[in-house]
């Protein structure tokens, strides 16, 4: 109970800050997803959110020393999602910043963080929306972090170096978010000619293509963050079993 209150307090500054942000970039805007799809994505996102609350609570209870690091993962997503960056299509998008937290704390914990970011963006910045919160949460805070987490685990298992695992996980996670958004829109708006596939191709052309250089940037910045953590937070990373003692350079 106490830890739950703590978690709420931890989130408070973001709320008041307008955590969110975001941008013109990716999220599906208010009113742009037909009602039945809003409902479906909300139902799909909900179990991950509950799972995430439980896992974050458990972590904070078992290892209170890691609270600051969890805050850092949230702050990282907060900053990256506030920066709209020019891309190769001549339009702007922003990164998600959820990959770092996903590889450190597991993907479900980032579902909670991402959902908070999205909710406040929707409320304070008119980006995304409350009815599309479920769909946007599924894209940015479920699909992205889960992709990042499993890619990281897989690459490390087959012996990829730390930096390569981190880079690929964060970059692919970022891209996965935007591909998921494209798919969500394509399913709701299948083309008269060619159906969902044709429509997906169009939406992905807008979202995912714009996102490619940003995904690379997110990968690079996540490697940078992990470098800093390896230098300044070794103990915490060991507590997370993210780095084994012998794995430290």
């Amino acid at each position, binding site marked *: 109970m106490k830890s739950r209150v703590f978690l709420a307090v931890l989130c408070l500054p*973001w709320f008041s800050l*307008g955590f969110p942000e975001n941008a013109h970039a*990716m999220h599906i*805007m208010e009113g742009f997803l037909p009602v039945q799809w809003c409902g479906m994505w909300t139902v799909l996102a909900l179990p991950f959110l509950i799972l995430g609350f439980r896992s974050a609570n458990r972590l904070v209870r078992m290892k209170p020393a890691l609270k600051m690091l969890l805050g850092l993962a949230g702050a990282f997503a907060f900053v990256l999602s506030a920066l709209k960056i020019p891309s190769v299509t001549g339009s702007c998008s922003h990164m998600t910043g959820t990959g770092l937290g996903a590889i450190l704390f597991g993907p479900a914990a980032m579902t909670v963080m991402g959902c908070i970011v999205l909710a406040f963006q*929707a409320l304070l910045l008119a980006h995304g929306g409350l009815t599309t919160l479920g769909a946007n949460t599924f894209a940015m805070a479920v699909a992205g972090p889960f992709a990042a987490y499993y890619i990281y685990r897989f690459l490390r298992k087959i012996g990829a170096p730390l930096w390569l695992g981190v880079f690929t996980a964060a970059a692919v996670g970022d891209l996965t978010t935007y591909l998921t958004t494209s798919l969500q*829109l394509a399913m709701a708006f299948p083309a008269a000619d060619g159906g969902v596939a044709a429509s997906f191709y169009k*939406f992905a052309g807008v979202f995912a293509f714009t996102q490619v250089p940003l995904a690379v*940037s997110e990968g*690079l910045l996540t490697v940078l963050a992990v*470098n800093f953590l390896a230098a300044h937070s070794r103990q915490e990373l060991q507590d997370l079993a993210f780095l084994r003692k012998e794995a430290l350079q």
Partner: protein
Amino acid sequence: MIGFLKNQAAKNLLLVLAVLILAAAPLAVYRGAGFEGADGEAEKVITEVRPGYSPWLDSLWRPPGGEVESLLFALQAALGSGFIGYYFGYQRGKKKQRENC
């Protein structure tokens, strides 16, 4: 140890430079582009695929004007960076203290 630190700092610097180049290059290449948000573009695709679709709901509140909006974005970035700076400063101080004991 000093060699390693230097080396690491150089690597980190390279990462930052690469990100800056990735962000700046499109500005140089597409000089005429407006660099609007990608979700505005998506709106166009929706109208293309489903002509006549109009959003069934509008946001409860939107920032009055671009300046207020960028204020909120800047605030968000500032708060996040503030916490990140605090975190690493705190960790560094903790480490120094441990080493001095």
